[in-house]
């Protein structure tokens, strides 16, 4: 009986996990979500570093409308970002893509993670060495 309950329990867990995984995989951004996410990635050129999604200025609003149009016309996210980058330089990108000028920005956290993991594992390895 206990064995049966255990097995059903395991089965239930697997089924629930499968449903959650399905929910995660089935995440396809709607046009509105793409607009919100792109709006966060593009800086408003006239408002001290705020994104066009956050800034209430007319300039930001107009840019956001343009993005909305581009999405409606079927542009991809990268095409839209490239379009704005070409017109307003690289400084417009708030998502700080990992390219040569921002190498340090991306490598530093990864470096800290690597060094930290090495040290953490080291606390254990030393013990084996001694033993």
């Amino acid at each position: 009986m206990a064995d049966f309950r255990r097995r059903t329990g395991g089965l239930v867990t697997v089924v629930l996990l499968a449903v959650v995984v399905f929910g995660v995989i089935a995440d396809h951004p709607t046009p509105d979500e793409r607009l919100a996410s792109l709006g966060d990635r593009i800086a408003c050129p006239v408002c001290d570093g705020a994104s066009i999604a956050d800034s209430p200025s007319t300039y930001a609003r107009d840019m956001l409308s343009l993005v909305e149009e581009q999405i409606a016309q079927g542009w991809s996210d990268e095409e839209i970002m490239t379009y704005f980058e070409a017109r307003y330089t690289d400084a417009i990108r708030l998502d700080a893509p990992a390219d040569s000028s921002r190498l340090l920005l991306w490598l530093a956290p990864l470096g800290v993670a690597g060094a930290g993991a090495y040290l953490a594992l080291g606390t254990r390895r030393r013990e084996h060495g001694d033993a």
Partner: protein
Amino acid sequence: MNAALGELGILSALVGATWLVVAARGEVKGAVGRVARPVVVLVGGAAVTMLALQLALLADDFSIAYVINNSRSTTPLVFKVSSAWAALEGSIVLWGLVLAGFTLMVFRQHRRNPDPLGAGALMVLGGVALFFFGMMATIANPFELCTQAIGASCVDSTPVPWADAIVVADGRGPNPLLQNHLLMAIHPPVLYVGYVGLTVPFAFAISALALAQPGIAWARRTKAWTLAAWSFLTVGILLGGWWSYEVLGWGGYWAWDPVENASFLPWLAATAFIHSSFVQMRRGMLQAWNFVLIIGAFSLTILGTFLTRSGAIASVHSFTQSSIGPVLLGFLALVLIGSFGLFARRAHVVAQSPRLESLMSREGAFLANNLLLTVFGAVVLIGTLFPLFVEAFTGDTVGVGRPFFDRFAVPLSFALLLAMGTGPLMPYRIARASIVWERIRVPLRLALGVGAALVILGLREAWPLLSIVAASYVIAAIGAHLLRLSRAGATKRDESLGSSALRVIRSDAGFWGGQLSHIGVAVLAIGIAGSSGLASTHTVSLEPGQRGEFAGYEFTYVRPFTSQDDHRVVTGASIEVARGETGLGIVRPRVNEFQGQAQAVPTPGVLSRVSGDLYFTIIAIDGTGVTLDVWWFPLQWMVWLGGLIAGLGGMWSTVMRRAGAQRVETRSSVRPVTIDG
């Protein structure tokens, strides 16, 4: 008069701080009872300084530059009071007062059990106070008299208190953003208690290093301080987010703004320190690391002050530009070089810790927690400073915004939640996989059940879904843990489950206070997943009488309204909100124009419900109609509630630990503390 009183206060505090450093040095070397008088002078001076500033603000003393530039005769009383910390010079006064208060409390503890460790800590506190009151006396003097004014702004001033000041008819008034909400009176003091509170464990750590007695005494003795500082920091950051949500009207509470990051960084370091110091207290591990963390946490508060107050970063918080930047940067360099230099010189006594037996253990979970928090801190630090460095060295502007921070913060938070749910269920030393699985099985299934239900209800957003699953797992795991222990106790003692649960909680109050904080963080995570991950927005233009619709709610623009009091003109829109047949009430988003200030400030209108907040801000309003941004923030209330619970959990642990901490203290002063292990 007020200026002279203030200068006197600063001078006394300076004398007190200097005297304290000298006297505490004497006590470190064996003298007794020397620090009492300097502490009194320091505290008295700090109190008089704040009192003089308050008197000047309340009495509309428009001969003082700070009062002219930050207050106005028509400013409401509460905002006159809060003007004392609304700008740079005043915020340093508040810093000094809080620091003096903490010094007094450390002194009272020290007087009961005088020892070199406590005396050394008082010496460090005196040194930090010396720096801040030194700044007040020179480059950040809040009592300078105005010698030249243009309109209602003082443009030139002198620190000489007997100079002939010009008296301006009326002041400029506070920054409009800062006189718009009651929270502005509460948020800075709460945050500062948290910020400055971290000076106490730092002072004890430096004292322990200088005296070459690493051990755990310093961390144990400052445990209550660290927890209290952490709780205030948590609630202070939360209040800042709330203020941003209620006042700034851009539709959110957290933007990864450099100044928000400045308060979040010490929080991350303090959180990591609280956890890693447990490991040292229980198992003697991570000695050196704890020194690094507390030095880091204190340095980050100084860095935070630099970022906030130097005007180095264009941000809504950088209300002032001043020469204070280089000085704070110099102090930061001094702290870093001095502390880590001392740390390096004591490397031989910061002994090799006992080793980890298995990564699969409570210690292993603490290590994972510290690793994740450290990486989190590194992301926030580099993301905040990178644009500054690039601009300083190349002159280029680089934007590092929300997408960058989110890309790291969201998965890191998810991993932290998983560790938070599993860690407290793991035994120390070695946790057998079967035991751990036995304990997490049911909570895991419950959490997956919540996730599956949401998917069936139509949720298809990867990160919000995963965050809610992980947060539910944390709450379920804590519940299951309490239930398991209570059941065992109930059987053993033959008592009811309820009274057994109470006994379990009381017997390890510090631990359960921590678990309460964990529940708070989990609730907060669900709130963030909802209000940020699932938020939606819509812009709408309405004429009076016209109806709009969004997120299942209907709203009607009833009419515009205006009102005027003696310090501002308010223009707003009355909007009736309904869902189906049910009227839900009227919201009144508005725009405030303050006298003496060019910038208009929007105040959002918020309708809070259990399912979420409907949030209106005015983009434009005139006689013919109104243009509104309408936001839907699901589960917004859980953000506020979660942060509050987390802070309460910390406070509870603080109070519950005090008795225990004092017992330990008595013991450690009898037995000389050497290296643990």
